[in-house]
């Protein structure tokens, strides 16, 4: 459990815009080990998405370094290390839901039969069985988001990066998917980077919680979870859980201007 999978050192990232530069990440240092489940939490606009994108080589840092499995994020991407769930569903409008889920499978060269099998399985997982033949605009917002989660789970990436995947889901579906995700993680030993706004969700899921502060995005706290790996839903009522949640809330509040 101690090989560093993702290692960011003194990471800086600045966007050039029409009215001046925007510093999105500033001096970010973080090590994520194999099998870690890391949640990122922080106020809106603090750079969570940007950091995830930098890990997946979708943004180029303007300073510092980042390595994934010891190589550059670009090389890791070539090796198909990532499954990514974007903040918006981003389904291709000309493909049906099944077609969208098949997309990565086609690209990675799975056989037709295997594709069908996997599509069926993940649709089941996100509770969308029966909607495979619909087009994205025929689904509700939450259903689209679930479809995009299914798409990222359909193939076996070592690193799963999820940007607020459960944002548009109701509590009950959310709890259900949280359980499913934990089970998948325990079974497959994936490394997961997970952005969320829900403190209980972050605490429930993670082995490590990264609290970020607003612009320029910095890491203000990294909390190692002391919860056991086996986590029934009612662990959320234990004092241990509540204590971690409290610490996260304090960290978050510190970054805000209100009160």
């Amino acid at each position, binding site marked *: 459990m101690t090989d560093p999978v993702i290692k960011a050192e003194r990471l800086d990232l600045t966007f050039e815009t029409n009215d001046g530069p925007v510093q999105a990440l500033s001096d970010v240092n973080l090590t994520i080990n194999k099998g870690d489940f890391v949640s990122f939490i922080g106020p809106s606009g603090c750079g969570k998405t940007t950091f995830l*994108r930098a890990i*997946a*080589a*979708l943004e180029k840092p303007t300073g510092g370094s980042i390595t994934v499995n010891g190589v550059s994020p670009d090389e890791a*991407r*070539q*090796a*198909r*290390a*990532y*499954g*990514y769930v*974007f903040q*918006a569903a*981003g389904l*291709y*409008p*000309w*493909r*049906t839901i099944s077609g969208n889920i098949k*997309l*990565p499978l*086609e*690209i*990675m060269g799975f056989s037709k039969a295997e594709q069908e099998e996997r599509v069926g399985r993940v649709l089941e997982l996100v509770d969308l069985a029966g909607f495979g033949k619909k*087009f994205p*605009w025929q689904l509700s917002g939450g259903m689209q988001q679930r479809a995009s989660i299914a798409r990222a789970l359909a193939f076996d990436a070592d690193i799963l*990066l999820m940007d607020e995947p459960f944002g548009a889901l109701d509590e009950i579906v959310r709890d259900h998917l949280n359980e499913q995700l934990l089970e998948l993680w325990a079974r497959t030993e994936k490394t997961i980077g997970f952005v969320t706004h829900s403190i209980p969700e972050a605490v429930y899921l993670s082995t490590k919680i990264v609290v970020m502060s607003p612009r320029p995005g910095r890491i203000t706290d990294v909390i190692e979870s002391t919860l056991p790996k086996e986590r029934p839903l009612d662990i959320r009522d234990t004092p241990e859980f509540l204590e971690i949640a409290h610490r996260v809330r304090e960290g978050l509040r510190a970054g805000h201007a209100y009160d």
Partner: protein
Amino acid sequence: MRSIVPVLTVVAGIIAIWYGAAIVMNQQWTRDQAERAGVELQLSDIVVDTLSQERPKLPVPHQVAAELWKTTVEKKITSKRSLIYHGWITLSATLLGFAIGTGAGILLAVGIVHNRAMDMSVMPWAIASQTIPILAIAPMIIVVLNSVGVQGLIPKAIISAYLSFFPVVVGMVKGLRSPDAMQLDLLKTYGANKGQSFWKLRLPSSMPYLFTSLKVGIAASLVGAIVGELPTGAIRGLGARMLSGSYYGQTIQIWSALIAAAVLAALLVGIVGLIQRITLKRMGMTR
């Protein structure tokens, strides 16, 4: 089919304007003739005469219709006086030219989108190529092809292709670049290669642009095929009909060839439109 009534209404409007314009434009000639003959004209005489001149400045619809009827229905289609025969000659060059032009246009666009060197060097010259007046270099193309033994349909098709590839390039380059950042990023996270991003993302999202370009392109092909008939001796085809009509001042013949060409163009554009609708529907892009 819901468009029948609107189309007929518009056509009726145009025909009414057309008759009116014909009376206005043709009356000068009627008056001059009468003056030479030294007769006085009533308004009704003018109207009757303007609608039945042999070489009017603007032939009226029924004259054109009669000529069309005569040259399509009443002539065998193998006859050289049959517009269907000439139309077929032009159509075959158009289709071949369109196939070449579209193929070349798409290939160029793909190259431009995927290869920076091509983007930077080819696009400006593709544009420049279109500013060369085709009618000016067409004879040279014909002469050069002739000297290497290429004759017949191909030179015309090449000229037709030359006119149709450009709208396809412009539209396709735009279309292939239309996927938004998130759609591209998704494929990047899969480590998809260029070919895969092309087939799975760029091509599907370029479809609306492609079809718009194809509609313009097929009309341009037809014009190209007709233009190409001039420097090949203008012996067959709709262009030859127009030209000989114009050479002998046979306005009615020009107009009927023109209408035939426009019908052909409308059919071709209509077919592309139909394919567009079917394709986009199957892709779930029409709601």
